[in-house]
């Protein structure tokens, strides 16, 4: 592929795909930017469309629901990351052991990832967390306790559990492949060197998994910042479960204030990019060694 001719041919053939992708990204982005500087309430024909400068941006941040939504977002992302990474490592170590029926167990562990977010949320809401008919309610009643209203009393925790259940397979899968690439002789050498299991885990396995853990955190953070279906299906943003994404949705579709919502969208883009740059640096540092 080195000749001038083949290179220009390659460019020509890639052009449609590149154009499509660019358009796909640039048109919505520029429209969001455009609306964010305008007063635009489509259901209120009495209010005229006009340029308002940074008015929408100021109003979005100064609204009383802005900081709580940032807080809720961070708690959910942090909680899910903590659970998936810790349990993911534990499961990866378990599943890399030789055992009977390992193939089937692996498929079962990965299964939740194939369930759509909406379905996941419905399953948890109705089957497990429902205070009347839910599985947990039945268990609590069986031992003589009052059922807990998970989604209204422990809203964020419940959401974290639901989302973590969904993302645990992903973390497990990546960490499992990393575990299997660890040289068995290194562990044996450490064993000969007198390292008990805990030390072998801390000094040999964990450093080996560091890169995979960063990848898991990076990818999950990007997806978790945008979780939406789980909240819409379970609480619809009530009981302090309104994340940044959900707040933007409410501004645009419930209040029909496209301008304000777009400003929020731009904040979300900035936030996601800050996180991405930050994490890319960590990954880059880890990939160097």
């Amino acid at each position, binding site marked *: 592929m080195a000749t001038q001719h083949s290179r220009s041919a390659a460019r020509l053939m890639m052009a449609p795909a590149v154009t499509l992708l660019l358009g796909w990204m640039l048109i919505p982005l520029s429209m969001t930017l455009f609306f964010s500087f305008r007063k635009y309430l489509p259901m209120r024909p009495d209010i005229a469309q006009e340029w308002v400068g940074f008015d929408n941006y100021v109003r979005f941040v100064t609204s009383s629901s802005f900081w709580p939504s940032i807080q809720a977002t961070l708690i959910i992302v942090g909680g899910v990351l903590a659970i998936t990474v810790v349990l993911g490592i534990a499961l990866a170590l378990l599943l890399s052991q030789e055992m009977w029926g390992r193939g089937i167990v692996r498929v079962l562990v990965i299964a939740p990832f194939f369930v759509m977010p909406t379905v996941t949320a419905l399953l948890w809401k109705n089957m497990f967390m429902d205070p009347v008919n839910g599985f947990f309610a039945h268990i609590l009643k069986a031992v003589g306790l009052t059922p807990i209203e998970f989604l209204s009393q422990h809203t964020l925790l419940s959401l974290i559990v639901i989302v973590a259940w969904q993302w645990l397979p992903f973390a497990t899968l990546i960490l499992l492949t990393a575990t299997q690439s660890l*040289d068995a*002789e*290194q562990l*044996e*050498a*450490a*064993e*000969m*060197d*007198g*390292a*008990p299991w805990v*030390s072998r885990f801390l*000094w*040999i396995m964990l*450093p*080996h998994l*560091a890169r995979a853990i960063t990848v898991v955190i990076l990818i999950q953070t990007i997806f978790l910042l945008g979780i939406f279906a789980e909240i819409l299906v379970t609480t619809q943003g009530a009981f302090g479960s309104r994340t940044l994404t959900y707040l933007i949705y409410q501004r645009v579709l419930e209040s029909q204030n496209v301008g304000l919502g777009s400003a929020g969208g731009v904040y979300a883009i900035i936030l996601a990019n800050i996180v991405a740059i930050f994490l890319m640096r960590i990954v880059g540092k880890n990939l160097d*060694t």
Partner: protein
Amino acid sequence: MGQIKLNQVSKSFGTVEVIPPLDLTIENGEFVVFVGPSGCGKSTLLRLIAGLEDVTSGHVMIDGVDATSIPPAKRGLAMVFQSYALYPHMSVRKNIAFPLRMAGLDKAEQDRRVRQAAEVLNLTDYLDRRPGQLSGGQRQRVAIGRAIVREPKAFLFDEPLSNLDAALRVGMRLEISELHKRLKTTMIYVTHDQVEAMTMADKIVVLQAGVIEQVGSPLELYQRPRNTFVAGFIGSPKMNLIGGAEAEKHGAATIGIRPEHIDINEKDGLWQGTVGVSEHLGSDTFFHIQCGVSPEPITVRATGEKAFEYGAKVHLTPRPEHLHRFDAKGLRIA
């Protein structure tokens, strides 16, 4: 101290017996080499001694103490692995200090021992590098360093030189021999390379399919192989093994003659043959000669100046005093 004794030790993986019960004694301070073709169980035997594999039956005695159920860390042995098994995220210093840190030694003592080991192994300039930044030979030395700081009762080497190129291998071979002379610690060394076995060992253990074929000093094995397997395995180029009518003349099922114990000339001799490929090494020349006495070509070693055309007719005479005779079971006839 470092005497290791195997009493009727055997190992099976499932229903496959890789090592039938065997006895072996390794004396304190000895350099013992386990040699054999790949899959002969030599590495398994080493891992049994190390404790990385459990014995199926029998006992491993270290310094007279039954170590069969003692975990590897507590046996007081150090192992150097084929892949070196260095910890990639730790500096050379931390790699070497790792067993000391696990033993809970204080910082100053760790430092002292690491520096001492680094000096012995010429690693002082590399202490702050990562294993990934070192060459193969240096990594090998770090692995050895990690073993010697523990001051073990015995060193176990599992094919440590097989990942190095030929020139480095010769150098490291000398370094390990030198180290043994200096430390006078028991060393058990596993290899499939008979040259390494011959050059380094005090005692060679030849294994085939988990069975000890012969134990002895390198020269003992070379001069008096107990059976045709050892005869063919030890020595390079291989001993010529001839069966059939020629062997019967000597009252044996197989006779063996080493390449250097055959005289070659153009005029007369016991066997007549045609010269095939000649390999000139400078110091020696190896001729592969197609001969009536055996279907396989016979290898003859001559001085470097000797030269024959391809296809030339030559005569070979084996020196009778160097003839090895083996019976129908392949065992040596005294």
